[in-house]
């Protein structure tokens, strides 16, 4: 029983991180119809910024804030400088550009920060809380991960639901032309959207790095799981990204915890789940049937 709870909590924690990464992809897909393949290496870059601050003596929290802020700046710059010219063009152009960016940023990380394995700290312990005699498998670190993602999502929901900027961003995402005719500065909203998405992506990169080793390609497995989570959810739905992330996190944790030689099967299981979902619902679990307007 204890083991089952432990595996479940691990799955939820990992799932939250997948959800955050998937959400970053969904935010960008919804507003610009571009799949940002560079999301992973953009997040890795900000994690390395955090790491070098920590190595220079800064606290984890200062490094976290600076990394998220630099994620925003990086996302905004990428949209303005690199994505803007291919926006609205053939889909393949944007795919190639973001793939190229993925490789370029990863290479830049290796050049600037080196390609060796470096340990990344976590602000909390990884031992379970103790209640009397029994140790429950919920660790402060997993609480922190789940809490950080939940708070970020709540802030995003509040931004989109209750603020004027959020309304303008949604209008721009759903219908650029109508939004422009209504006086919304759509270009600015897209830049802001990329910046926010990069913040969420960076958060996932910082959380997955906590307590492990980082190197320029350390995000690669998260990239795969994040994409699978986003596509399971329907790529168009923020709720879908979160549910997709949690489903995937739990499923992979059970595979790894219960199947014989489970840890070797994790990656392939993610792809099996992806294929299974797409066979039943080709648009993903939360795909809407409403036609999008130009």
């Amino acid at each position, binding site marked *: 029983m204890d083991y089952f709870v432990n595996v479940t909590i691990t799955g939820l924690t990992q799932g939250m991180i997948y959800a955050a990464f998937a959400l970053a992809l969904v935010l960008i897909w919804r507003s610009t119809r571009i799949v940002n393949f560079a999301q992973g290496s953009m997040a890795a870059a900000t994690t390395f910024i955090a790491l070098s601050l920590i190595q220079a003596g800064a606290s984890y929290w200062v490094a976290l804030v600076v990394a998220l802020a630099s994620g925003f700046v990086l996302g905004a710059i990428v949209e303005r400088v690199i994505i803007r010219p291919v926006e609205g063009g053939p889909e393949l152009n944007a795919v190639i550009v973001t793939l190229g960016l993925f490789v370029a940023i990863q290479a830049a990380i290796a050049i600037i920060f080196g390609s060796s394995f470096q340990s990344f700290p976590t602000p909390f312990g990884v031992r379970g809380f103790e209640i009397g005699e029994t140790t429950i498998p919920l660790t402060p670190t997993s609480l922190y991960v789940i809490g950080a993602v939940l708070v970020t999502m709540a802030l995003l929901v509040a931004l989109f639901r209750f603020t004027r900027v959020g*309304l303008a961003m949604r209008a721009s995402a*759903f219908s650029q032309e109508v939004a*422009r*005719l*209504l*006086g919304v500065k759509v270009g600015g909203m897209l830049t802001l959207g990329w910046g926010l998405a990069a913040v969420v992506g960076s958060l996932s990169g910082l959380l997955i790095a906590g307590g492990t080793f980082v190197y320029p390609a350390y995000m690669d497995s998260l990239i795969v799981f994040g994409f699978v989570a986003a596509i399971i959810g329907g790529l168009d739905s923020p709720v879908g990204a979160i549910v997709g992330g949690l489903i995937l996190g739990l499923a992979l944790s059970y595979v790894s915890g219960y199947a014989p030689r489970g840890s070797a099967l994790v990656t392939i299981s993610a792809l099996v789940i992806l294929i299974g979902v797409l066979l039943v619902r080709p648009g993903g679990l939360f795909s809407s049937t409403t036609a999008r*307007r130009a």
Partner: protein
Amino acid sequence: MTEAHGATAVSRSGGSAASGGTATTGGLLQVEDLTSSYGPVRALDGVSLTAEAGRITAVLGANGAGKTTLLRTISGLVRPVSGRVLLEGHDITKAPVESMVAKGMAHVPEGRGVIAELTVDENLRVGSLFRGKVGKDEFDRVYDLFPRIAERRNNAAHTLSGGERQMLVIGRALLAQPRILLLDEPSLGLAPRIVAQIFGLLRQLVDSEGLSVLLVEQNARSALSVADVGVVLNLGRVVVTDSASTLMADEDLRHAYLGF
């Protein structure tokens, strides 16, 4: 289509209806010698027209005559090859699309232009965003004009009927407090009764509140029944500009270009 009519633009004496005015005189919105093309296809070929303040100016013509391109060029969605657009005497030909509504021009695009994923209320709020804080009374006024959308203010806009969508986008445009409203095919796909209701309301807003309207319509009969002035387009050129009643009475012209 008869070749003879299309060859030269006829401008008949119709008082204020006459087109081709110069930059300095009259006309809330003036379009001068506007030419637009999509690649090699010339959609507008030297179009000039004037929309007077406090009038409904209807641009009529068959599918492909260039009506939608005309509105899209006026509001900057399409950049013209040559020609000018003047709003209250100011050249807005190169102004950004986003700035048009603040200058006093609200463009309701073809196909309703509701943002389907947002609620009715959110659609209205997007329309007033550029003005900063807008009083609740202004929203209430729109809901008073269109009680049918008031009942559905918290529903997603994609659940609205065609007529309700048209009411929503007109209401949303009014929240921008425009001097001139550009409407692209508001009657498209609507029942005649709803069309009459919407056109009746436009007439009322023009007469009582000094709104001006540039209306693009394929449904020439309905449009001319509410408009003051009609401009007939054919293959990207102005064929004739005259008062609505004169155009209505011209049987040859109606048969040739207006399809009724």
